[in-house]
């Protein structure tokens, strides 16, 4: 049991070079599928164990902390790990046909290797208890994702990858700098040790500088308001399957880093409250929500529209965190899970149906309700989840979000939530109208295979299930936020 965290990390890491040796595409796909599935099973048992018995600490190479690197699998980590591995598995299954047609044949096995490395990076970020290790894994996942993004068959794909590289590196550099300052000030790199060493009356100028740099780095990663432009451009020009994968995972990794650093490492200072940073973040995410929903309404291209909607939902999550109440943290964690599932499902449908189209406009969806009735009804369910109709998971997260807002000091934000959910209804309605109420039928779409459709149905069914039985999302999130706010020793 104690070895589970490192197994989760090591498994894809070991398989990836093996795949490099056998340059076989189908073999690469099968192995990565197998590894993801195994990972998922391991993580489910890990989650079970951690939920019952508390967190697992594992020292890499038996070097004791704080010198050595330690992996800490606590409830927050397992929650995010579950999300990442599940999304990875689903996207692998549903995207294989896409990969075969969009990406050049020579590169497919490299594609899957990069996918596995990206997985390793994500799992490493989530599991590690050492702050520099976090940076290392962040760089691993970013490098892998630069490669993955550049594989799209748009002319602008490589350009988008380079842009993402620049911006991602800038973010990583900020984080590195902040880590360096922390190390210089405290002499340790272990997160639990850091949180012990940073006590309240030790706030120097350099410490506040490091906090600010962390904020910028994390802000770039989570597409906080002024730093969100890269997300839209990336999502438009990357291969669709990568967009589906990243919409559910890479931005949520940023949320994880935010939570870990600001609520865990800096736990004793509570810097957000101290410097009124929280209000700044609140304000920024509020503007982010409004603006991105506004941009989403006027979009014609579906992937851009969904990208802007992702930015809006992410801003909701950050908003809920910035409220600094336990209910806010719970609401944001619930929404992380629910939104990932919904957004991945939506992007997957676009991926499945439009393999060769580069720009998918709303008009391309016309008449598809009659052509693919089952698939479109699952799509409709996911869209309703995006709006937040009751009985879907979107409603649950909206409920918790609004109650958290009303319980904090910033009740007027709930009006903004109301307005933006109305605007969300608007652009979702444009899609639904085209799908079901259009005269012409678009015959350019590709027919989904059984496994692809099954993935979508699974995601839609999970949305409904999480809308009714919330013990998975709400139960765990509640436990996590109670741990954060009411336990001083972890």
């Amino acid at each position, binding site marked *: 049991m104690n070895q589970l965290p490192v197994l989760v990390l090591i498994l894809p890491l070991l398989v990836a070079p093996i795949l490099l040796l056998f340059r076989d595409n189908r073999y690469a796909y099968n192995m990565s599928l197998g590894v993801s599935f195994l990972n998922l099973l391991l993580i489910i048992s890990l989650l079970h164990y951690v939920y019952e018995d508390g967190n697992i600490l594992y020292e890499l190479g038996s070097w004791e902390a704080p010198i050595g690197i330690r992996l800490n699998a606590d409830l927050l980590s397992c929650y995010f790990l579950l999300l990442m591995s599940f999304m990875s598995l689903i996207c692998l299954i549903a995207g294989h046909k896409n990969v075969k047609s969009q990406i050049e044949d020579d590169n497919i096995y490299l594609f899957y290797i990069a996918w596995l490395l990206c997985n390793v990076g994500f799992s490493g970020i989530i599991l590690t208890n050492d702050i520099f290790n976090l940076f290392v894994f962040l760089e691993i996942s970013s490098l892998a994702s630069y490669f993955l993004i550049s594989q799209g068959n748009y002319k602008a794909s490589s350009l988008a990858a380079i842009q993402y590289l620049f911006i991602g590196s800038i973010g990583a550099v900020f984080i590195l700098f902040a880590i360096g300052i922390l190390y210089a000030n405290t002499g340790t790199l272990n997160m639990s040790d850091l949180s012990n060493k940073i006590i309240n009356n030790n706030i120097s100028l350099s410490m506040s500088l490091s906090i600010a740099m962390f904020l910028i780095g994390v802000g770039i990663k989570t597409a906080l308001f002024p730093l969100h432009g890269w997300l839209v451009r990336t999502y438009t020009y990357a291969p669709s399957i990568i967009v589906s994968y990243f919409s559910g995972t890479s931005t949520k990794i940023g949320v994880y880093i935010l939570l870990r650093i600001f609520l865990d490492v800096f736990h004793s200072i509570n810097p957000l409250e101290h410097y009124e940073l929280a209000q700044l973040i609140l304000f920024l995410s509020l503007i982010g929500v409004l603006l991105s929903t506004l941009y989403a309404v006027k979009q014609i291209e579906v992937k851009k529209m969904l990208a802007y909607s992702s930015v809006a939902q992410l801003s909701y999550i950050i908003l809920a965190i910035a409220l600094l109440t336990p209910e806010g943290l719970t609401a944001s964690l619930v929404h992380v899970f629910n939104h990932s599932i919904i957004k991945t499902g939506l992007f997957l449908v676009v991926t499945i149906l439009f393999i060769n189209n580069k720009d998918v406009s709303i008009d391309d969806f016309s008449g598809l309700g009659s052509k693919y*009735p089952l698939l*479109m*009804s699952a799509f409709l369910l996911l869209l309703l989840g995006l709006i937040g109709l009751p009985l879907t998971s979107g409603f649950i997260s909206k409920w918790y979000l609004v109650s958290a807002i009303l319980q904090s000091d910033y009740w007027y934000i709930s009006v903004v939530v*109301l307005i933006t959910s*109305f605007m969300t209804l608007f652009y979702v309605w444009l899609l639904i109208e085209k799908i079901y*109420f259009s*005269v012409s039928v678009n015959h350019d779409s590709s027919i989904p295979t059984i496994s692809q459709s099954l993935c979508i149905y699974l995601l839609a069914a999970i949305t*409904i299930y999480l809308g*009714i039985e919330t013990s998975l999302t709400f139960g765990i999130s509640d436990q996590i936020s109670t741990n954060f706010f009411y336990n001083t020793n972890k």
Partner: protein
Amino acid sequence: MINNLFAHPALPLVIGSLLIFLFKEKSNHISIISILISLFILIFITSNVDYVYMSNITAINYFSYSKLAYLFCLVFLIMGLIGKLFSIYRDSYKEKAMVLLYISSAIFVLFSGDFLTLYIFWEIMAIASTMVIWSNNSRESFSAGNRYLVMHLLGGMILLLGIIGLYVDTNDLQIRLLNLDTWYNWMILVGFLLNAGAPPFSQWIPDAYPEGSYSSTVFLSAYTTKTSVFILIVTFAGSHVLMLIGIYMIMYGIVYALLENDIRRILAYSIVNQVGFMIVGIGIGTELSINGTAAHAFSHILYKGLLLMSAGSVIYMINKRKCTDVGGLYKTMPITAICGIVGALAISAFPLTSGFISKSMIVDASIHEGMELIWLMLLVGSAGVFLHAGIKFPWFVFFHKDKKIITTDPPKYMKYAMIITSGICIFIGVWPELLYSILPYSVSFIPYTGNHVASQLHILLFSALAFFISLKYLERTLTITLDIDFLYRDKIKYIKILVNFMSNMTARSINYISFINLRKNFNSIENYLMKQTTVSVMLIIILITFTVSLIMNIS
């Protein structure tokens, strides 16, 4: 020991709705049988079983019985049965399934014990009724349904905000009497009032209801507004602001109906009018007035259904819906005319009809409370009702200028439906104790006193005189009247300009490269069809996961 779930009268309707998608040819049989089963369950099982079901998560109480709910459920099911009889010849099975879903969600709302359940089924009711409107398959019904959906979802969001605020503040979601002293109670009130057709949200009733098919309007008129009346009785009885809102609705309905040309729009405005009476009754808040409101809702569903059925028969037979196109139909459609006249008498509270015994309760309640101004306004309303619905509707449709249209009475089931309903209206009027026995509070009111009958006859006679004297000013013209919908209809181009402007400004000020693509105009929709399998599969997925999780919760 009967399982709680199966004592709910709405379940057979849900199952029936699903079965219709599977067996499309038998939709008539399935619908009538499921309504009969529901009636059976309601009358014999629901009132006897021990009912409260608490889920262990957030104290959700989805089945809570009350005498008022029994009354409303009874009249909902009776109207459903009559309406299904009337819609036998309609060949849209989608409409029939959606109507069953609509009725079932309304009954779920009636029996819900906490606000979350109420909200869930409130939304389902809005969606189901929109699909009923859309099943008419015409361009106008498509756009009217769109506006209806947007309006109701907006009201749902306001209601949700109020409910969440209520939960956050008081941590108790059970449905109970609320005072209007907190912001969230006001939002809940606004959410309920939007469904009832209160100003400024009253335009959706005359906008959307006449766009349904000839048979679906009968259903549409009965459920959304009366459900909100029910929930207002339970949560806001006695709030005096409701009296003012109700009086405005009464006058609004009369004035706009006088100007209206479309047959069923007149009746739709008259729905707003009558619901206004009910809301005044809720606002007064005494036992007598709540009794009156409940009785009025009962009789209103029936006589409004009757009026809409006779209008629907006219539309079914000759496909004309404007007053300027019809006239002189009493010779060729006698049964329809007689039933229409019975309905008109009932709505005007003519003695010996069901309208008389219920409206006089509300008026008397205002007298007992000493509210002179309210009472005067109610009298004005009573006079006006005869004017716009009691005489105008039958006169312009069945009498007046004879257009010599060649037609006959509608086919037999439609006739039976109308005759049965007029029979019920008169029966209740002649024997009021039957209705009084199921009212929530005990009744010591006697409708047939000399005062009541004499004053009512006075008012009615002289309103009739006023109508016929000023007949030439009331001639129907080919016009429509603007309303609050002027603010939001056809305004997409302004919204587009506004959205573009705002986003361009922000894009430039942040110095990003923004995509300046104007939205293409909406395509003109000549014909559309919502594929049946999609909706049924969606419903099946929802229901399966719902039942699975319910089963896991129950055991």
